[in-house]
């Protein structure tokens, strides 16, 4: 059973990574704490729900195609938001950027409820994905492995981004140097838009991938966002590999926690986060050299 639980943990971990990767990417490059990330995730789930029946219901290919398309649509919406609203206030206090993303949370939640109602919706998934391998009477569900695969693809894509794109350079250039992009002589705005788009895309496909497994309702946004923050913080905001590690840590801890100390399950991850942050604070940080 430990093994099934481990699978559960890793699957949740990868799921969390799918969610957190976009958030941490956006923060790492644009220094924006995007409260609307959970909302984009939810949007991705509902768009998948809308698309699957149109694009081959029941077929595996159809499902993935729908998820991909949902991701793209989410990215489009994210980009529109970035260009119409966010971009106008890059100069001003970061808190303003925070509040404007909170505003987007309100909007998306209301619109989603307006279009799809308040009830949970069922995203039909091909049976091929929802089944299980049965190894001496223990069920190993297929879906977690699907999620895992999807996660790996994203990880590879991420490594690509970090290695070979300018956004990646900025990411690597270190978290605290905002002037860096300027020094690199690249069009910061273009990169910010691109990064917000890809972040939204990741949120969208994460929502789409998870949709058939869990329940999809218009309150997913808040459920998701806090956990996503925790994962990013544990991994170090703006650090994609960290996010991966953090996600796995949280996922596995949660799953194992159910077995060993169930009463703690809810606080557990917050405790991890707190511990990580406090540990981070133990080192003495230096002042300005000049």
């Amino acid at each position, binding site marked *: 059973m430990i093994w099934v639980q481990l699978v559960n943990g890793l699957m949740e971990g990868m799921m969390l990574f799918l969610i957190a990767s976009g958030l941490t990417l956006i923060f790492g490059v644009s220094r924006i704490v995007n409260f609307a990330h959970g909302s984009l995730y939810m949007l991705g789930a509902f768009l998948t729900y809308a698309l699957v029946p149109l694009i081959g219901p029941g077929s595996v290919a159809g499902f993935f195609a729908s998820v991909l398309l949902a991701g793209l649509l989410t990215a489009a919406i994210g980009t529109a938001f970035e260009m119409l609203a966010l971009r106008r206030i890059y100069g001003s206090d970061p808190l303003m950027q925070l509040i404007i993303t909170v505003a987007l949370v309100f909007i998306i939640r209301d619109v989603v409820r307006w279009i799809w109602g308040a009830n949970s919706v069922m995203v039909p998934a091909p049976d091929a994905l929802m089944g299980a391998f049965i190894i001496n009477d223990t069920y190993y569900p297929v879906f977690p492995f699907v999620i895992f695969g999807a996660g790996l693809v994203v990880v590879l894509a991420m490594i690509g981004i970090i290695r070979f794109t300018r956004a990646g350079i900025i990411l690597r250039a270190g978290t605290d140097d905002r002037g860096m992009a300027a020094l690199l002589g690249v069009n910061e705005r273009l990169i910010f838009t691109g990064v917000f788009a890809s972040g939204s895309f990741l949120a969208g496909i994460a929502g789409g991938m998870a949709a058939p497994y869990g329940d999809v309702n218009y309150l997913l946004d808040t459920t998701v966002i806090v956990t996503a923050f925790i994962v990013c913080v544990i991994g170090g905001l703006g650090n994609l590999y960290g996010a991966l590690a953090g996600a796995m840590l949280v996922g596995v801890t949660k799953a194992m926690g159910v077995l060993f100390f169930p009463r703690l399950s809810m606080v557990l991850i917050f405790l991890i986060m707190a511990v990580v942050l406090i540990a981070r604070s133990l080192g003495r940080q*230096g002042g*300005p*050299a*000049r």
Partner: protein
Amino acid sequence: MTTDALLSARKVRKAYGSFVALNNIDFDLPRGERHALIGPNGAGKSTLVACIAGQLPGVEGSIMFKGREVARLMPAELAQRGIGRTFQISRAFLQMSVLENLISANVIASGRWFSLSKSLLCEASDKAGEMLSTVGLTDRAQSTVADLSLGDRKRLEFGMALARDPDLLLLDEPTAGMSIKERHHLMELVAQRVDETGKTLLFVEHDIDVVLKIAQRVTVMVRGGILATGAPAEIAANEQVQAVYLGGHH
């Protein structure tokens, strides 16, 4: 180590990863001396100052101040022990007026930062008033730091550094961005103040004329090490110095 030294550093080393910013620095600073640090950009002048002021973690070696080891202390403790400094890129409380900046400095200097008493505030503002005139900013008292010229900011910072009446005054490029006239004026002011109060001055300066005029001794730094130390005249005469320094600097 010389007993009359106010500050003496031994084998001070500071590395950022593979880059060694300071390499086994030995450095003595007698009481009451006006000492200049010169050298090309990136020679480690500001790093040395930051080390002395306790801003940098992971500093190796020993720094004795008033006969006590201070290498591992936090900046606040060092300030309380009598080290006052200004920064190369001037630092002040940007959303406060010049006067408020000086008042804050004096409140902090009083050691009663947690106080609610109006009287302390009055004392602080009286002192601040005097300082305004000392550094010649009386007419700018109400303007916010953001509106100040670079030169005026330097004056303000100098004034703030005086709040604790420190035994050792560290000035990192105090005259950067000033007109020649301003430079000499400010540094004469500093020198005068230091002599009157019998304090010690260590300053980083690029303007050779100012250095020759103000400093009693000069230390030349290059690539994280000390090239030469001596009276201004000797330093000026030193070919090595001329080579490196004039070569390295503008």
